[in-house]
């Protein structure tokens, strides 16, 4: 057991830090830029800088343009990148989800996209969720029917992050309604410029339109854009979703607590014992997250895949985030509820406060995660499933 870096890791970290300090141009907004188009453009530009300087695809195989290093080095780089407040957030779907999926399941032609992602040339979005397929994604009803060499897709998707800016999307659609819900789903790559795709931004109460509804009407997708086998989309999608969880490793923790301590000093309440109690508790939560991060980094360093740690991290992070935003309101008082204006203390907290429940939903609700944990950690049986083995077309609607 050694919680510190190995000499090799330490050298890499030092090199990364030095380069970042020289080249990073921090956004100063902890990734919450209200001008989304600008946010996307900055992320793509930053990815190009990383690529041109050899910092892109650190743990990707050399065959795909990466450096072929172990995942721990990517985690170390991400950690250091977080300290300079640069973000690749908008590229999460491309780099964290699509690329790993194509590496494993894609055809050689499909894998050509990987290089474009690496070079910061493509923004991707995810067309999975539907209005009636949330936690129970597998009941999705968007249909794809083969017509000659093309699939014709009709349906509606929701929560398409940054769909209004994306060039490409990954899409799940039902190609066989006569088999149980997890079967009969196929995984497609779709050009977002295809005729029949309409992306409608959903304005959220935070004032941004991060998400969209996407309507697909007779959208034609070439056969070559099927990833994996027809009808095997669920297992391809699992690769995508698992990769998403892994991509959260290596962020930094505690920066929000540091900001709160600063805010408490500015507002003159750093001596308030109740505020201090809250700050201390938030700090202990950040410590939990940090040490969970050690386990994840350790697994990556040893070349294994951290599983349960990822799930716990997600839950612990959501709780921590809700408590710190509450504490922020306690420190800022009524000022905290004035709409965000990018000035000083108000730059982040009101947004965070309104958005706090979102961290409990994204990537699976708390409840779904807890069910997984009860099964995985404690061996408790699943709830009896009402729809096992029932053909999708016969499910109750």
């Amino acid at each position, binding site marked *: 057991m050694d919680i510190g870096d190995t000499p090799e890791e330490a050298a890499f970290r030092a090199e990364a830090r030095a380069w970042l300090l020289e080249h990073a141009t921090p956004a100063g907004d902890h990734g919450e830029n209200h001008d989304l188009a600008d946010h996307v453009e900055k992320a793509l530009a930053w990815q190009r800088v990383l690529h041109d300087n050899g910092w892109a695809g650190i743990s990707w195989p050399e065959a795909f343009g990466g450096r072929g290093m172990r995942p721990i080095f990517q985690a170390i780089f991400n950690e250091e990148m977080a300290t300079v407040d640069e973000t690749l957030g908008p590229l999460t779907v491309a780099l964290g989800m699509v690329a790993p999926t194509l590496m494993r399941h894609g055809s050689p032609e499909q894998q050509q996209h990987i290089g474009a992602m690496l070079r910061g040339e493509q923004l991707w979005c995810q067309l999975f*969720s539907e209005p*009636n397929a*949330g*936690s*129970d994604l597998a*009941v999705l009803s968007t249909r794809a029917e083969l017509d000659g060499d093309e699939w014709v897709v009709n349906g509606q998707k*929701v*929560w398409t992050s940054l769909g209004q800016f994306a060039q490409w999307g990954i899409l799940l659609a039902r190609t066989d309604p006569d088999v149980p819900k997890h079967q009969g789903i196929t995984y497609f790559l779709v050009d977002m410029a295809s005729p029949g795709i309409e992306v409608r931004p*959903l*304005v*959220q*109460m*935070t004032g941004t339109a991060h*998400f969209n509804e996407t309507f697909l009407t007779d959208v034609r997708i070439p056969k070559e854009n099927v990833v994996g086998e027809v009808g095997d989309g669920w297992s391809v999608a699992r690769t995508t979703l698992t990769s998403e969880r892994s991509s959260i490793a290596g962020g930094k923790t505690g920066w929000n607590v540091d900001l709160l301590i600063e805010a408490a000093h500015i507002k*003159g*309440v750093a001596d*308030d*014992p*109740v505020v201090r109690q809250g700050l201390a508790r938030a700090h202990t939560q950040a410590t939990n997250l940090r040490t969970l991060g050690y386990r994840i980094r350790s697994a990556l360093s040893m070349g294994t895949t951290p599983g349960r740690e990822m799930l716990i991290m997600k839950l612990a992070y959501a709780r921590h985030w*809700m408590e710190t935003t*509450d504490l922020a*309101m*306690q420190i800022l*008082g*009524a*000022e*905290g*509820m*004035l*709409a965000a*204006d990018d000035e000083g203390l108000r730059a982040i907290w*009101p947004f965070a*406060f*309104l958005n*706090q*429940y*979102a961290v*409990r*939903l994204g990537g699976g*609700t*708390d*409840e779904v995660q*807890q069910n997984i944990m009860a099964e995985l950690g404690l061996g408790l049986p699943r709830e009896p*499933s*009402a*729809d096992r083995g*029932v053909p999708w077309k016969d*499910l*109750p*609607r």
Partner: protein
Amino acid sequence: MNFDLTDEQQVVTDLAGQLFTDLATPERVKAVTDADGFDADLWSALADAGLLALCLPEESGGSGMGMVELALVAQQQGRHVAPVPFVSHVLAARTVAEELSAVPAAAAAVQGAIAGDMILTAAIAEVGVNDPLNPTVTATATPDGVRLSGEKPAVVALDRAGKILVPAVQDGSTVIALVDPAAEGVTVTPLSTTNHEPQGHLELESVLVADDLVIRDPEALDRLWLRHLAALAAVQLGVGEGAVTQAAQHVSERKQFGRTLSSFQAVSQRAADGWIVNEALWSTVINAAWQLDNDGAGALEDVLSAAYWACEGTSEVVLGAQHLHAGIGADVDYPVHRQFLWGMQNSTILGTASSHLARLGKHLAAGSDVGSVDR
């Protein structure tokens, strides 16, 4: 012992409920919020129904009712998140009527307030640690009257107010001045608030107020503040009720894994939690209002209890309702997010949950009169 509503209280409740249901529809609320945040039609209807005169003295043309009735109407407003400055207006009008009705200018303001022609407001929130009982505005006696200087944050409906009650300190005593926003030295800056309620920042630079428009009763500010806390708690109660109602409907309709969401214990129990908080808050809010009607300042502990749960409990309730709505809850075209925004904003406006506890704790431990938010 009778905790049931009187017939008269039931009539007021039904009347308000009907008005808000008919006029403050989700579509209308969205339209008004997207515009200037003030529903003039609803306001007229409230005036026509006599609800703006609700708890004003009969001598001033009011109905002579009290805080319980005000709370019942405020609760209905909260359920519909109706965009009108009901609480601040009625409470300001009541204070002016009670304390200054002998002065023609003030009496005229009360009449305007009852008719809905003039909007009144009270600048209760304070800069800094937000301790409304320790105003930071200073008042200085001059031969012409009193001159006020200082600032007040987050004044409700400041942009369209005809008169503003401004607490201040003069020679160590607390006073409340009735300020005309058109007077020289007054600067009004609109604020963009999270729930889109029109608020403003008020700056006063040596603003002159006639001596007879200054309330000098040393207990007037305590009273005004406690009434605001109780009335806002009633709004919160309604906000939470609206959130739970919408959440219960959503989870009863939405299916996942072949079952309605509500058939999952984790879901139904969370919804039940919200309902329980609301039910407990109802008794506590109505009790606080009743104590104010019957005891005045002696109701301090009960009002602070209501204020605390209106912050802490209702925050939990609206968060829970958002969670149960999942993604759709954040869509501004879907109404439940308004309950969330109101619930969250009201939880900070007259102090946070923590500051209410600080005050109550000081009071309980030290046996002092009011306590302060300063620990």
